[in-house]
């Protein structure tokens, strides 16, 4: 009898123990070649969630909880994970998309079911510009077509380049950037020396590069993940040719210096954030939180890849504001909540009206920073020798 009473009392007390948590989902690569990047997204989200929960959560004290699933960098697995998180775990907002193909596969699920999807990494232009009438996809990250514009701008300004050649990996990502770079170049009335593709597994890119050289290229636009990018650098070394290299952020995804050798530092690539150098108050706070929570983080150099942490942190903070504005966890209300955000002093920048019905990307080409590898660290260009 006494036991029954205790059970009943416990059951009655449980709901009051704490209101139901709000679940935030994350679908990303947690294993394999991109596992570090997936871990960076996790850390950015977790630090933001800890901060939000410490301040009392959202919607009058409801705590936020992170639920993660591994997509192994494959779209099919990503779709299964996204469905599970949306429909079984009932996450209020799904974060995900480290790889553009995975993100693109999740986009229709989000839009058809009116469930918000936040992309903190994948840069494919059509992820947010997906043509859906009711668009539930948002992004706090770089966007290919803007990166392409920024790459041209940087090459012209920094290297006074007039005639850049493109060396692009032969896959949909390379394709998307070929389009973007062509558009950027013709918009500026400039011209490209040539466009060459290489396979992700190519060992020798010398033939492609010597073709670009003979076409008079005075700089190179490079698009490829860390492995393929390193093949380009090593091939240039073998040719004894050292043009300025302006790159998308592929090299940031791995041990670029180990793979590409001493010339790795010649590659200048785009990033959205760096924890090196003078930090804003938010930067200091996030770095301290990371160091307190993760024993392997002893300084700015250990926050890698920094873009993952920074994008995820800001995206989570913006999402919390959107939920607060929505007043509920309904998908449509949160979507409209994103539109109602006025101002947020974030890590990457101060966001003013970051989202609107026609504006689903919070970052633009003015928010990018240029970085290079010095030894094994990604640092802003010119900060270290």
């Amino acid at each position, binding site marked *: 009898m006494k036991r029954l009473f205790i059970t009943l009392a416990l059951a009655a007390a449980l709901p009051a123990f704490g209101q139901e948590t709000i679940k935030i989902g994350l679908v990303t690569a947690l294993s394999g070649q991109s596992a570090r990047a997936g871990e960076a997204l996790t850390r950015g989200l977790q630090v933001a969630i800890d901060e939000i929960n410490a301040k009392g959560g959202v919607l009058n004290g409801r705590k936020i909880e992170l639920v993660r699933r591994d997509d192994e960098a494959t779209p099919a697995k990503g779709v299964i994970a996204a469905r599970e998180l949306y429909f079984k775990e009932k996450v209020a907002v799904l974060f995900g998309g480290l790889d553009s193909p995975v993100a693109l596969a999740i986009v229709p699920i989000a839009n058809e079911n009116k469930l918000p999807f936040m992309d903190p990494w994948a840069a494919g232009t059509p992820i947010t510009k997906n043509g859906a009438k009711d668009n539930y996809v948002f992004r706090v990250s770089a966007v290919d077509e803007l990166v392409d514009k920024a790459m041209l701008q940087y090459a012209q300004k920094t290297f006074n380049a007039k005639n850049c050649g493109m060396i692009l990996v032969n896959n949909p990502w390379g394709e998307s950037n070929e389009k973007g770079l062509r558009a950027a170049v013709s918009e500026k009335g400039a011209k490209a020396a040539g466009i*060459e593709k*290489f396979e992700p597994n190519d060992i020798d890119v010398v033939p492609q590069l010597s073709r670009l050289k003979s076409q008079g290229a005075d700089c190179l636009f490079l698009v490829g993940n860390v*492995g393929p990018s390193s093949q380009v650098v090593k091939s240039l070394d*073998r040719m004894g040719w050292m043009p300025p290299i302006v790159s998308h952020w592929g090299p940031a995804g791995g041990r670029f210096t180990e793979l590409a050798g001493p010339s790795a530092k010649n590659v200048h690539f785009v990033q959205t954030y760096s924890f090196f150098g003078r930090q804003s108050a938010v930067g200091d706070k996030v770095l301290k939180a990371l160091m307190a929570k993760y024993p392997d983080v002893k300084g700015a150099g250990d926050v890698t890849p920094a873009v993952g942490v920074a994008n995820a942190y800001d995206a989570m903070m913006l999402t919390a504001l959107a939920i607060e504005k929505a007043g509920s966890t309904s998908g449509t209300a949160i979507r409209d909540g994103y539109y109602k955000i006025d101002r947020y002093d974030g890590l990457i920048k101060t966001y003013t009206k970051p989202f609107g019905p026609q504006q689903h990307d919070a970052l633009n080409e003015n928010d990018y920073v240029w970085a290079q590898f010095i030894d094994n660290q990604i640092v802003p260009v010119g900060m270290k020798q």
Partner: protein
Amino acid sequence: MIGSALISGLGLGSMYGLLALGFYVTYAVSSTVNFAQGSSMMLGAVFAYTFSVRLGWPFVPAAAMALVLCAVYGLLVELLAVRPFASRGSNAWLMATVALGIIADNTVLFTFGKEPRGFALPWAAASTNVLGVHVSALQVSIPVAGLALAAILHWFSRKTKHGKAMLAVVQNADAARLMGINVPLAIMAAYAMSTVFAGAAGIMIAPLANVHSDLGTVFGLKAFAVAILGGITSAWGVMLAGLIFGIVESLITALLGSAYTQILTFTLVIVALALMPHGLFGRAELKKV
């Protein structure tokens, strides 16, 4: 431009040739091949990296040990994926060798990791200028080593007792058996040799490429095209076909652009085989009834 394309082509071509020699050796002795030669190549690179970088051995013993392990892998391929099927007249070794290759690739994926690793050799980076073309030590040493291995194979099969025994198996396995030649042993030796060639190619290509479990996949496929193109029955033909394939591939890229490389190279392979069904240097097999 043509100069550096030629050097690139020679380097890659001799690697295709080395892998294709592996197809030739086993095909000649047993009319079977290890379709997953690409995996054997990857194992050579991964073993050499493990001994040399992770365990800190000097390069030469590391490479030697890697080749020994490759030979052991070759024996396993023969014992597990070829003999059980070929001995019963089944062609299932086709699939079994592919399957064993996939198992090897995935085992490496789990143990070595998915992240590609760099395997730099200090001497390989040295470079010089020859007639206005930049040439690195590695680019020179790859074709030299490739051709040297092909020459050693030639010498072994013509001048040594074991080589002659293998040639006898090639000509007539039954007659060889009656002459007291251990045919199963000769076939095992051929498989070990074939994976050693592939492993050597892997070790040489590793500093040029990155070491990862997927290193050999495309290479293995191209090498098979090369073996058929060369006419799988001639050692020098196979090596030469490798060089031709590599050079044609690089020249097409350099002269016409990378958009055309794969389309044109493989079109040329089909055209060549249509015109010369036994390969560029092969002979028609006589089937006596």
